[in-house]
């Protein structure tokens, strides 16, 4: 984080932030659309309350405005890595359950998965620009969840998508904070200003 921002680096970071913001926005829109399709496809109630899913980081956080840029990036990266694993698992379960019967839902789920992966890549790039080491993934990610029933799988999928939609919103706000020009380049304070 201490590395000084060269003009090209600043430009690159701005570009990455901008792209990541738009990706998060699109991801949210797609996830919202996917949620509708998923609820309908899985026969769930859109208003059904889902308890916190294990392994899914919560978007809501206290003192969000006090977080530093790096902290935001790291939290986002951890979350999206988790979503990537969860979505991959959902996609596999989806294929197991429906096969090719509902290819549209599978394609939409795969598209969201790609977007999650892409967003995670953007975050890693931003962290590299901050000259911060990228935390390694914990083995293969979170420990595989215990074998759940089919309904539990559907509910968990619903919870993953809802939380992903939340994270998409938060990510946009985090990245906009990061994209703001810092008064003192090369300082961490640039990533710590309040929204």
């Amino acid at each position: 984080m201490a590395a000084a921002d060269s003009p090209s680096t600043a430009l690159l970071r701005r570009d990455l932030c901008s792209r990541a913001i738009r990706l998060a926005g699109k991801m949210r829109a797609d996830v919202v659309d996917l949620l509708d399709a998923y609820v309908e496809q899985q026969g769930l109630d859109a208003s059904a309350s889902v308890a916190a899913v294990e392994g899914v980081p919560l978007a809501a956080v206290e003192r969000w405005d006090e977080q530093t840029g790096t902290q935001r990036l790291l939290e986002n990266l951890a979350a999206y890595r988790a979503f990537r694993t969860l979505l991959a698992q959902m996609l596999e379960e989806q294929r197991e359950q429906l096969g090719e019967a509902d290819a549209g839902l599978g394609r939409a789920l795969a598209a969201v998965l790609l977007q999650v992966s892409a967003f995670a890549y953007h975050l890693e790039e931003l962290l590299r620009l901050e000259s911060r080491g990228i935390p390694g993934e914990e083995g293969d990610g979170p420990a595989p969840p215990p074998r759940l029933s089919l309904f539990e799988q559907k509910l968990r999928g619903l919870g993953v998508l809802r939380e992903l939609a939340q994270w998409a919103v938060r990510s946009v706000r985090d990245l906009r904070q990061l994209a703001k020009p810092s008064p003192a380049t090369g300082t961490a304070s640039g990533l710590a200003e309040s929204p």
Partner: protein
Amino acid sequence: MFSRWNWVACGFYLVLNICSPDASGGLVQSCGHIIPESPVLALGSNFTALCILNESCLDFGNIYASQIIWKIKNRVVPKEQYREINRTVSSVTFNDTSSLATPLTCNILADGQIEQNIYGITVTVGLAPEKPKNLSCIVHQVSRFTYVMTCTWNPGRHTFLDTQYRLRYSWPEEIFPDCIPKDVNNSCTVTDIQFFVNTEIWVEATNALGKAVSDPLVVDPIDIVKPLAPQNVSVSSVLLPTVVKLSWENWISDAVMTLKFNIRYRIVGDTNWMEVPSEDTSSPRTSFSVQGLRPYTEYVFSIRCMKEDGEGYWSDWSEEKTVITMEDQPSKGPPIWRIIDKAHSPASWTVHLIWKELKPYEANGVILQYEVTVRDKSSLSSPVKKYNVTGTNHTLQLPEGTYEVTLIARNSVGASPPSVLLIPASNSKAPVKNLRTLPKHDKLWVGWTAPNSYVLKYVIEWCLVSSSSDCIIEWQIAPGDVQGIDLKGIKPFKCYLITVYPLYADGQGSGQSVKAYLKQDRPSKGPTVQTKKVGKAEAVLTWNHLTVEEQNGFIRNYTILYKTIDGNETVVTVDPSKTEYTLSSLTSDTLYTVRMMASTDNGSRTGPDFTFTTQKFGKGEIEAIVVPVCLAFLLIVLLGVLFCFNKRDLIKKHIWPIVPDPSKSNIAQWSPQVPAKHNFNSKDQMYPEGSFTDVSVVEIEADDKKSFSEQDLKPFDLLKKEKSTSEGHSSGIGGSSCMSSPRQSVSDSDEGETTQNTSSTVQYSTVVLNGYRDQTPVQVFSRSESTQPLLDSEERPEDHAGGADSTAQRQQYFRQNGGQDETNTDRPCFERAKQITHANEGDFVGFVQLQISGQSSQPLGLGMEKNTQEAALSSVLQTCTEGQTVRPETVEENPLSVDEMPKCYLPQTVRQGGYMPQ
């Protein structure tokens, strides 16, 4: 041929059997093989193949590498390319694989010169793939959530080989499935596109000779999107006549891509589009109000969009939507003009007011009516007249004066500003100057120099000039600050009369006119030339002007081309205003061909040929020749007549000797019984001795007429009368008669003069045997029964030459004439003279009278004046002169009256030669 192929087949079978000892046990074992096996070679490279013989075949068939023959298809490869490596291996080398073909075979020339195939390979020649170039990708929006990315590239040269192209793309941490094009080698479409991540895209081309990879294209697919055009476009006219509102829906949510827009519109029927300024539509929106439109105009709208930041591609234009803006009041008054007809009475005008319909963008709606107001400016007390007109013209009957005409167009919204036209009593203001025209493509430019005074506007009138119809005036108004306009709708090759009027605030200038063509051509026909007058060396040519329809342009000149049949053509250029020209210096009595050519700026046209022949003589030449000749002839004749007249006695002596007329002799009186004593039965008896050689004249001295008393003369008168009225009454000497003769006896032509008295009564007899002069003699015995005494002068006229005047009236001539020529000649002379006499009897008095053949008299001088056939007359005169006996004294003393002429007659038998006076 058949036996040869049989021999080869038998040999091949033999060799196979030799080389394949266990052929019966399975596949035939070859005696050799080629390395490499079916190679793929680069075009243009060198290539070496080896043919390796099996050892087993060597011993069995005595086959060695030296006997190997290489073939490409059926063509033997030159042995220079062979190389025997050892006794079982032969190689062949090709420096350029382009000369290779399939198959390449290894053959052996066995004993007996039998050529046997050992092995063959298929050679494939081609090229390694080139590096794909110009890779580009575009993301097409297919539906609201579906995007496909199509990448295209240039595959490079043709490889002649099976080459596989694949489009590859990846994220840094993600490899996507390859896109393999179908049926093409230069494009591929990816259906799984993710935005907002830079994607590396590249193309790999692979074939048997190699692999080539294009330069990678790193792009975020969102930056190469071509979105769908906005949908559900609607347009509506809102409260203002110049504003419409455009609404639409976007296919892409703002979360994915924010958009900017282009809005274009045009008037229906117009092909040119107008665009709303791009900065006005550069932000995301779903509606826009377009302003600055024309009222009551039908517009077409269309819209497109693209990514707001300008990355990517514009969408296609949306479907077109039309709308008609609301009406507004007319923006200007109609252009107005007038045509004044003063034909009926100069003091009373027929004013035709004419105006043009407003253009749609000026009318701003449907014009319901026009309001015309006429105010007499010369009389302030006269009321203003108003007319409501639905058409575009109005005719007024106005007394001569100055008027102000106001015109207003009205639609459903309101009225236009008024158009004012001042009609002055006279166009006394200054006209425009230097009026000129210039063709400009399909328009005719009319220019002028403005007068010194301030001009409100100009009126330009023009009409098509025609020889068969009236000029139908078209007109146009130009602002006062211009000095030229373009006239549209002008036809080429037609003559237009253009007039420009300057309109002032207080009057109107007189019009200046000019004729012009938009485009000229050569005349459609040439002038028809003809001669008006042809002389010996000149000819006056005349022609008619071409009609304006035939001219096709301004006639710059006429050209006359004339020539003789074999001569060079002469060219004369004539001013176009002329219709007549005189060709001079022509050759007389020569046939000329003349034609005429009319020329415009763009060519000429020649009329039909016309031929004429110049005269042989010029004007007056004939008169100059004929008149002197005639005068000379007349002079000669006159001189001849005078000469003859003066020398008449001499001529008479030599040509016409005087023969006394026995009938006028007095012998008949003194010997009345003599005829009874003679009995002549025939002429032969009368003249037995032969012919007489001359006329015997008994000359008797006669006394003066006065010596006879009237009683003495009476018997002669009676006798004369008898002879004159009774034909066949012959006279004789002494009572003898010629009545027995078939010849008829008739009185002489001089009988009219037998009334002369003679005192002598001498009886005489005349016997004529010889012909008169050279004429054939007629044996005639002639005896006069005349009781008249012979005149002195009749007997010897020459003897009385000195006293002719005193003795002439007593002279009597007896003329013995045996020929007919003279008689025949006398007749037309008499007839001619008779005609003249009848024509002008009174003129005879005082003229010399000519007695011709003793029967007629010829008024010589009169004949010359009255007869127009001079030549004939001269001939007659000549003839008459020869046989005439001129007795002027007779005319003086006893002129014959017209009533007395019938007493003298010409016996009809004279021409038959049956009777001769005796």
